């Protein structure tokens, strides 16, 4: 009896220690991730924040970021959805290579992506020299910002869409066909609605990645206020000249990023388990 009571006490102590260790671990990881974010908010007063947010440089960077990111998102969805559909449905020679190129921007340093784009579309680049002869300049324009964002952020959507289209049970599409639906109608009324929540998650992640793009943009598009200076670039400039400017834009980016992640979580929660 005494031995059982002793073992029970030992088990209880061990469990308490396990809980304590788990609690410390969770708190440590959370604090490591949250404290730097908190530090941004604590370093600036609300008055300073609201004064700085009216700075033309902040407003300009905010609009350029939102404008370019929205265009990027539209292009990635419009081109990426049919691309991912065909890519997942058909086998063709070199498919593995295409898959590798889709994944490449995820592991490639963004600065390298910027250099690569510059080597292709720059004034003396492989294609850029011909565009230049026609009077079209791509590098160091707002278009270059969008192209850099598409290059770096599109894999988030393409990978997600590809995997969704591969996973959907072909029986749904086959049934739709036998019921008289054309391939296009099947795609629009069956495949896309059944993968919609996953596609939206991919799109939101793409938006977030494009919004935070820095390396490829500064290499390929430069840092021209009002033309190519996006919010991350303005943070970089602000930290060198005006700390509050950097902090204000950082806070805006934290809020937008947080909202994006929250949106993804909510969408994933609502995701149809039958899809």
């Amino acid at each position: 009896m005494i031995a059982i009571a002793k073992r029970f006490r030992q088990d209880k102590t061990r469990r308490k220690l396990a809980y304590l260790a788990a609690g410390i671990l969770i708190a440590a990881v959370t604090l490591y991730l949250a404290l730097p974010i908190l530090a941004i908010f604590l370093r600036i007063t609300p008055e300073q924040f609201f004064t700085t947010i009216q700075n033309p440089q902040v407003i300009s960077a905010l609009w350029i970021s939102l404008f370019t990111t929205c265009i990027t998102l539209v292009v990635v969805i419009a081109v990426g959805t049919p691309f991912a559909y065909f890519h997942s449905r058909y086998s063709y020679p070199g498919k593995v290579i295409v898959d590798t190129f889709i994944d490449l921007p995820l592991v490639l340093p963004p600065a390298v992506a910027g250099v690569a784009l510059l080597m292709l579309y720059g004034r003396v680049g492989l294609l850029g020299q011909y565009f230049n002869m026609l009077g079209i300049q791509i590098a160091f324009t707002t278009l270059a910002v969008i192209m850099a964002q598409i290059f770096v952020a599109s894999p988030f959507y393409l990978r997600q869409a590809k995997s969704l289209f591969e996973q959907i049970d072909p029986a749904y599409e086959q049934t739709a066909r036998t019921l008289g639906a054309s391939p296009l109608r099947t795609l629009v009324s069956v495949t896309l609605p059944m993968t919609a929540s996953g596609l939206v998650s991919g799109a939101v992640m793409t938006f977030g990645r494009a919004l935070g793009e820095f390396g490829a943009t500064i290499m390929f598009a430069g840092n021209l206020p009002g033309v190519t200076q996006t919010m991350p670039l303005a943070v970089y400039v602000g930290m060198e000249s005006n700390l509050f400017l950097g902090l204000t834009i950082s806070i805006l980016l934290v809020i937008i990023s947080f909202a994006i992640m929250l949106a993804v979580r909510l969408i994933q929660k609502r995701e149809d388990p039958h899809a």
Partner: protein
Amino acid sequence: MLEAQIIKKLRDYSLDLSLTVRPGEILVLMGINGSGKSTTLNIIAGLTEPDLAVISLNGECICHSQAGTYVPAEERRIGYVLQNSAVFPHMTVRDNVAFGLRARGGIPRQEIAKQAARWMEQMHIADLAEVRAGNLSGGQKQRVALARALAIGPRLLMMDEPFTALDTESTQTVKDLTRRFVKAMQIPCIVVTHRLTDSTEIGDRACVLCNGKKEWEGVPSEMPGFCSVCHCRD
């Protein structure tokens, strides 16, 4: 009437089969997994391309490999209930049943609504009209799939393992409904199953496939309990 001659090279063997199903007749296609049952249905439905085939429905040729005739799946008007029923989970029961009527085009909205309501009534799913199909039970899904397939006024009904995931009561209901409407509409019907009881209860005729070849054909109750080819039912 369905008349089909099909040849298709599969991974381990060749599917080589001739089938005839009369109007109002239910042919049960039996055989072990991988014997070529689902492939046969997919070829007839136009979802899989055969190597060589001549398929006609009510005298109209829908596939003739040598003549280069190949009517696409969406134009064959074949009601096909695939495995796991494949009801569209994001749509309501009403939208599922009306899907084929809308997809075919040319039918006024009111007529679509009327026909969908009639089929839901006949399949005893009218009270589920506004329920999202993803939330239905297996038996309910199967009745939705059957209503959806019959609503297009098919020239042929095909069902692939329709009773696999159903309990005894649902199985009986789906069997009764299938028999009733196949007889009433006088359409040929093929049901794929691997259970002997299903074949005797629903089938007018049974055909046993083994390694892509017809091993036995006749009245289900007279089916031998062994397989002379690969001994799969010994």
